[in-house]
C-alpha cells in the first residue's frame, strides 16, 4: 500500500512502529460523549487497518463535538508520537489535549486542568500525519487520556484511528489495582481443604 512518508518504506515496516496498540488494555478503554457505547474500542488497531472503518468508528453525540478517550495500558509505556485519523466533512478533531496517569477525567475536569501537552490537528484522512510528544514527559505512562474539544466545523466528531508510537517497558504501574477485595464473605469462594479430600498439612 502507498506510504506517503518522506522515506522509502522498503527499509522498515511502518506498521511495526505503530505497535503500541498491542499494549493497550482494550476492555478497559472508555470514552465520554460517544454516541454508541463501546465504539471507542474499534479505534485501536494495526497501522494497516487505520483506514478500514468496517468495524465501526468513534462518533460523538449529535451537536456536541467534544470527546474524551481514556486509554489504559497493560504495562508502562513511553510514547513518542500520536497519529489520529478523523472523519471527513469537518468531523475531524481540530485540537487534542493529553493527560497522563489520571483516572476518571470528565469534561469539567478536562476543561479546567492543565494538559501535559496540546496539539492543533489538521485533517488527516490518509493517516500519514503524526504528532510528536515531548518525550521526556511521556515516560512511564500507565494510562493516557485524550481530550478533543473541537472539530473542523462538523456537527459531530468522528475518529477512525488512533495510533501510538513508542516503547513498552514491561513494567506494571498499578499492581494493587488488579486485586479484588472481598467485602462480604462468600463461603462458596473458599473451598476448605476438608471438602477436597482432606489430608494433613505437612512441611517439606
Amino acid at each position: 500500500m502507498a506510504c506517503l512518508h518522506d522515506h522509502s518504506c522498503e527499509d522498515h515496516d511502518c506498521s511495526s512502529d505503530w505497535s503500541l496498540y498491542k499494549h493497550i488494555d482494550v476492555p478497559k478503554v472508555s470514552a465520554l460523549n460517544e454516541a454508541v457505547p463501546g465504539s471507542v474500542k474499534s479505534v485501536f488497531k494495526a497501522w494497516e487497518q487505520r483506514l478500514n472503518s468496517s468495524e465501526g468508528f468513534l462518533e460523538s453525540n449529535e451537536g456536541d463535538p467534544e470527546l474524551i478517550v481514556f486509554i489504559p495500558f497493560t504495562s508502562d509505556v513511553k510514547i513518542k508520537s500520536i497519529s489520529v485519523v478523523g472523519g471527513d466533512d469537518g468531523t475531524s478533531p481540530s485540537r487534542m489535549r493529553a493527560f497522563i496517569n489520571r483516572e476518571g477525567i470528565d469534561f469539567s475536569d478536562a476543561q479546567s486542568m492543565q494538559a501535559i501537552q496540546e496539539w492543533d490537528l489538521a485533517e488527516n484522512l490518509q493517516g500519514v500525519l503524526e504528532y510528536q510528544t515531548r518525550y521526556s514527559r511521556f515516560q512511564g505512562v500507565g494510562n493516557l487520556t485524550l481530550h478533543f474539544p473541537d472539530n473542523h466545523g462538523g456537527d459531530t466528531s468522528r475518529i477512525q484511528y488512533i495510533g501510538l508510537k513508542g516503547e513498552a517497558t514491561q513494567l506494571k504501574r498499578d499492581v494493587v489495582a488488579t486485586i479484588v477485595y472481598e467485602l462480604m464473605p462468600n463461603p462458596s469462594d473458599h473451598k476448605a481443604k476438608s471438602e477436597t479430600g482432606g489430608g494433613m498439612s505437612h512441611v517439606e
Partner: protein
Amino acid sequence: MVLEATMICIDNSEWMRNGDYSPTRFQAQADAVNLICGAKTQSNPENTVGVLTMAGKGVRVLVTPTSDLGKILACMHGLEIGGEMNLAAGIQVAQLALKHRQNKKQQQRIIVFAGGPVKYDKKVLEMIGKKLKKNSVALDVVNFGEEDESKSEKLEALVAAVNNNDSSHIVHVPAGSNALSDVLLSTPIFTGDGEGGSGFAAAAAAAAAGGVSGFDFGVDPNLDPELALALRVSMEEERARQEAAAKKAADDSSKNEKEGESTSQDATMSENVGTSASESENKKDDLMDDENALLQQALAMSMDDPAATVTTRDTDMSEAAADDQDLALALQLSVQEGAKDGSGQADMGKLLADQSFVSSILASLPGVDPNDPSVKDLLASMQNQPEELQLRNLNRRKMRTKHPRRTTNDFILFYSQVTSCGGYI
C-alpha cells in the same frame, strides 16, 4: 451485578403532606427509598448509595455515597417537610456528589422522586439531560404525587435526553391503593438492566405478595401444614355450601319471579360475604325488600331499638323459610343466635317501653327535663314503634307481590345512602 454509585434525590416539599398515597406521600416515598437502597447494596456489595433532599431550605446532601445501609436508613429519620422542590439544582448536586465518588470504576446513576410540581422549562431540563448523558450518568425518575400534563411531559423529555441505550427510565405512579414501593418493584428501576437487582426484586416481590395473598390463607404450608390444610378444607366446604344455597335460590327464582332478578347478584353477594350461609340469607332478604321497608328498617336501627330489629329479621327469615324447607335448617341456626340476642334485648325493650322507668332514668341524667315536650314525644314514639313495625311487616308481604322490579344496584346505592346519612332522610 453492575458496579454502580447511586444518588437518590428525595422530594420533601410541602406537597408531600398529601395523603393520597398511604399513609402520606412522604412516608410512601421513604419506604420506596429504603427498598431501593436495600436492592442496590444487595446486588453488588461494592455498590454505594447516597441520599439528598431537594426541597426545604435548599438542596442538602444527607449522606454521601456509601455502602453502609444502616447509615442510609438512619438519615431518613427526622426529615422535615417544607418548601418547594428544586429539580435542576438537585440533579446538579447529585452529579457533583457522584463525580467525587471514591471508586471511579463505578457507573453513575441518579434516582429522582418527583412529587411536587416542576417549575423549570422543558429546555432547561433537556440541557441538564444532555449534560448528564455526556458524562455518562444514568437517570431514573419516579413521577408521583402532583399530576400535571406539563410535568409528565417535562420529565419524559428529561429522561429522553439522558437516555443512552436504555439505561435511564421514567415511571409514572398514580395515586391509589397500591403502595409506591410495590409498584416500583416491578419496574426496571429495580430489575436493573436485566440481571443483578432482579434477584432482590424477585424476593421482595414474593415477600410482598406472600404477605397479602401469596399463601392461600396467610399461613405458610411449610410452617404449619395442619392449620393450612384445615383452613383449605373448611374454605372448600363453605364454598360448596354457598353454591348449594345459590342453586336453591336459583330454583326459588323460577317459582317466585320477585326474587328472580336478584339471585345472580345474590350468588355473587353471598360469595363475597363468605362467612356463613345464614348471614348471606339475611342479605338476600334485605335486598328483596322494597324501598320503604328498607328505609323503615334503617330508621329502626338508627333509633337504636334492638328488639324491633331482631323482630324484623325474624319475620324476614320466617317468610323466606316458608318458601323452601332446605333453607330452614340454616335459618334455624341463625334464629337461635338471634333469639339469644333477642331475649336479652327484648327485656331491654320492655324496660324502655315502661315509661315510668324511662322517665326516672331521664330525670337522673343531668340536663334532661322529663317534662320537656320533645322528650315526651320521643318516649311516645318509642312506645308506638312495636305496633308500627308489626303493621309494616304485614304490609310488606302485600307490597312485595305488587311492587315492580328494581335493580339491585339501586338498592345498594340507596341503602348505602340511607345508612350514610344516619338513616334520617
